[in-house]
């Protein structure tokens, strides 16, 4: 796993294949390994890049602190692409990063050719309804178990009980303070009114059983987009389609890329 130095921050990433660039962005309390069951379907024909956001996986903290703002995440993604000399790239982004990718499409449009927004929204449920009382402060007592139980209840019905717990346990590998930063970024994210400025094609993906970023919320995000957009809802799937149904998600994204012409020259 190589590193890119981005404004003094060591960013870990994997890169394989050749062709039009595709950057995979993980969600809150996770790292790039969430794409393991998907990226193999893209290395034939694409320049596949999987990064760990600062503070996650093997990446260092950004300016020594957990990031807590979607705009900062988007800034880092843009600077990372510039550092690699890559772009414009298609961003395949999950959950919190769905918002990050849409934000990047607004802030650095020259670096983004398309977005696949998986279970993401430009206005989080929390920003819409607010966290009750001081709950977010209380979560600091034990953010790790809060996230484990979040993920456990966010996985749909297609996987076994054992596999669901296994996937939920992954969030324990992220430091508690980084989880809190992610939660703050997710809960404060609200740029719904700006989505008309997103002009690149966007494929939106939602899971029927996702209560955190529900199909309704993804649909409302899709409908506000200014450019061409599509929405697919997976039956029986929760918040993590890339881990729950990778065999369905991969061809869905590839077909989207083919429709918008994000394919190698010889494939056109």
């Amino acid at each position, binding site marked *: 796993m190589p590193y890119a130095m981005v404004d003094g921050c060591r960013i870990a990433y994997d890169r394989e294949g050749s062709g039009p660039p595709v950057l995979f962005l993980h969600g809150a309390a996770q790292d790039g390994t969430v794409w393991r069951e998907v990226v193999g379907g893209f290395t034939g024909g694409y320049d596949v890049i999987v990064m760990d956001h600062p503070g996650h996986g093997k990446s260092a903290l950004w300016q020594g602190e957990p990031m807590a703002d979607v705009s900062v995440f988007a800034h880092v993604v843009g600077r990372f692409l510039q550092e690699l000399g890559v772009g414009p790239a298609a961003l395949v982004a999950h959950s919190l990063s769905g918002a990050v990718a849409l934000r990047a499409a607004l802030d650095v449009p020259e670096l983004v050719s398309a977005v696949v927004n998986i279970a993401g929204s430009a206005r989080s449920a929390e920003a819409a309804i607010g*966290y009750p009382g001081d709950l977010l402060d209380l979560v600091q007592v*034990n953010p790790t178990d*809060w996230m484990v*139980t979040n993920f456990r*209840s*966010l996985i749909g019905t297609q996987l076994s009980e054992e596999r669901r717990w296994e996937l939920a346990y992954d969030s324990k590998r992220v430091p508690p303070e980084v989880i809190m930063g992610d939660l703050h970024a997710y809960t404060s994210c609200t740029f719904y009114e700006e989505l008309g400025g997103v002009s690149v094609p966007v494929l939106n993906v939602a899971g029927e059983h996702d*209560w955190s970023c*529900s199909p309704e919320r993804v649909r409302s995000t899709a409908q506000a987009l200014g450019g061409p957009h599509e929405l697919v809802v997976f039956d029986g799937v929760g918040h993590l389609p890339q881990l729950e149904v990778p065999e369905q998600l991969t061809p869905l994204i590839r077909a989207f890329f083919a429709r918008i012409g994000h394919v190698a020259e010889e494939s056109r």
Partner: protein
Amino acid sequence: MSSEGDAVFGPRWAQRLERALAADARYRVQTRWFRGVVRLDSPQESAQIEVGEEGSRVRSPAAAGSFAFGLSGPAQSWRELFEGPRASLNSSVRRGDLVLTGDRAALLKWWLLMYQIAEAARRAASERQA
């Protein structure tokens, strides 16, 4: 409507939950280091889970006395937690449908334990409906 009427908790609910907890290996792991009373309340009803050396005893209505922590909310919110297709402890609390009671910091510390109780109650509810 079931023979238990509109009640969310009650003696038979307590029996079902106690059986579900006794059969739950993950719950037993979470109770290895916890001893005390967890309380569940609605305006009309109450229940408690007493976690001791010999396992967990569930009773409804709850006994008078102190408790470590718990949750409280209207009957409809409890029904949603126990039977709703997308419901979970996290979603119910995040929406403010259920509020934390007792030592709230302790409840966050023992969040996995509370989660296992809620999930066991969901399984018990589905058994009743089956």
